[in-house]
């Protein structure tokens, strides 16, 4: 397995195995709920393949990014709407 990488999630540092997608990094850190719906319900990933957008987060400044489609890289900054 590739070396660990560090990402910043809502200001908190997280160390994950290289190659992990952002959605998986969040879920394995106990943050299965990744955003809040327009009415404030907690939501987490469903499709795992970029269709449902329920894992969306702001990643390095890009809003509404599907976190299941993005591989973690060192220094990546993730902001969720669930904090």
């Amino acid at each position, binding site marked *: *397995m590739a070396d660990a990488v560090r990402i910043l999630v809502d200001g908190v540092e997280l160390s*994950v*195995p290289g*190659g*992990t*997608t952002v*959605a*998986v990094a969040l*879920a*394995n850190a106990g943050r*299965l*709920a*990744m955003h809040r*719906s*327009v*009415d404030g*319900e*907690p*939501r*987490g*990933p*469903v*499709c*795992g*393949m*970029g*269709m*449902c*957008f*329920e894992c*969306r987060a702001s990643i390095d400044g*890009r*809003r*509404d990014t*599907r976190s*299941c*489609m*993005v*591989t973690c890289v060192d220094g990546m900054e993730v902001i969720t709407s669930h904090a």
Partner: protein
Amino acid sequence: MRELACDVLVIGAGPAGLAAAATAAEGGSRVVVVDENPEAGGQIWRSAMVHGPHPETSALAARALARGARFLTGATVVDAAGANTLFAVDGAGPIMLRAGRLVLALGATERFLPFPGWTLPGVFGVGGLQALAKNGLEIGNRTIAVAGSGPLLLAVAAWLEQHGAHVLGVFEQAPKASVVRFGLGLWRHPRKLAQAVALLRVLRQVPRHHDAWPLRAEGDGYVERVTFSVSGSERTLQVDYLACAFGLAPTTGLGALLGCDIAGGGIVVDALQHTSIPEVLCAGESTGIGGVDCALAEGVVAGHVASGHDDRARAACRRRDRERGFAETLGQAYALRHELRGLPSPETIICRCEDVPWSVVAESDDVRDAKLKTRAGMGPCQGRVCGGALEFLKRWPRDSVRPPLIPITLGELAEVGAALNRTEDQTR
């Protein structure tokens, strides 16, 4: 803007796209393959992080690469100026893709049907949970119920068991008789029969229910228990996760954007995989759900046609037709039952992006009416989830898309818009 020109542009690097790319490249064409995932392979050949690429992905990709094909992964097509000029966006911004011929190998997505509690975190798709687990989601010792419909339920249940999860049961909506009849017909397809036998061996300790579907999922902030209807009686299970999907639906979005005819939920193709738009071919699940062997056979036909070898394509049609026949028996065996239309309660969210409940959608006349009244289908997923549900619940066609096909930044939008205008000026 970056530009990439080729003879044959293949959208999608799953089995159909890879087969088309290898075939067209070996037929002498300059090939570019675009896929929005970080790696080639599509869904069924999605690689598990620890194991590296699936061997069939590597083999087909190597054949294409040996003939000079280029792979652009992590790039999503967002717009098109006709069939010969597409715009994709990757981590570095927009790219213009110019091609003589286009092969759409868009694959399929799972069909999710709404029931009370289906929006709770921890309720995944079936392929969805497997995809996340292959990317490293921890599933060891988790209790998981697998529900919905189709052979994927057994395949994923077995995979989860083999990777340390505890599968509490498989809940298939189809009647046992039709699943058994389908299984008995597998003798005509020895490779599939062997796969089915191997799956059932892994699952011999796992209860398998038919005439069964989820009635409601409950929990405080995430799923904790699920109540199923099993042959007419209720059964409640404590779970860590629920994996639930009701078969697959062809992905048609880019085809619809280009103006390809769509019927029966899939992109319409003729005997040589031509769509209704000249220069645009389509292969694999996006033409109709047929499974991996069918997708490979269609990809080969499309690859030959795309590289100008119709004679070779005709020779490859027989295998494709045999696999199509299998696809039809599959569709019949796992047809969705009418009772599933009664699953959502008035309060159940149908459009997850905009939190639109069933009570509101149920009263709308069609997709347009629902969008105007409620914004259903207007969120970031553009109706990819609720469209598949409403195709079944309301029999509404699922073909409405608008560019950009995924949210992009304003800067990218402006760049693509300017390039679109230039392209249109040139062709006027």
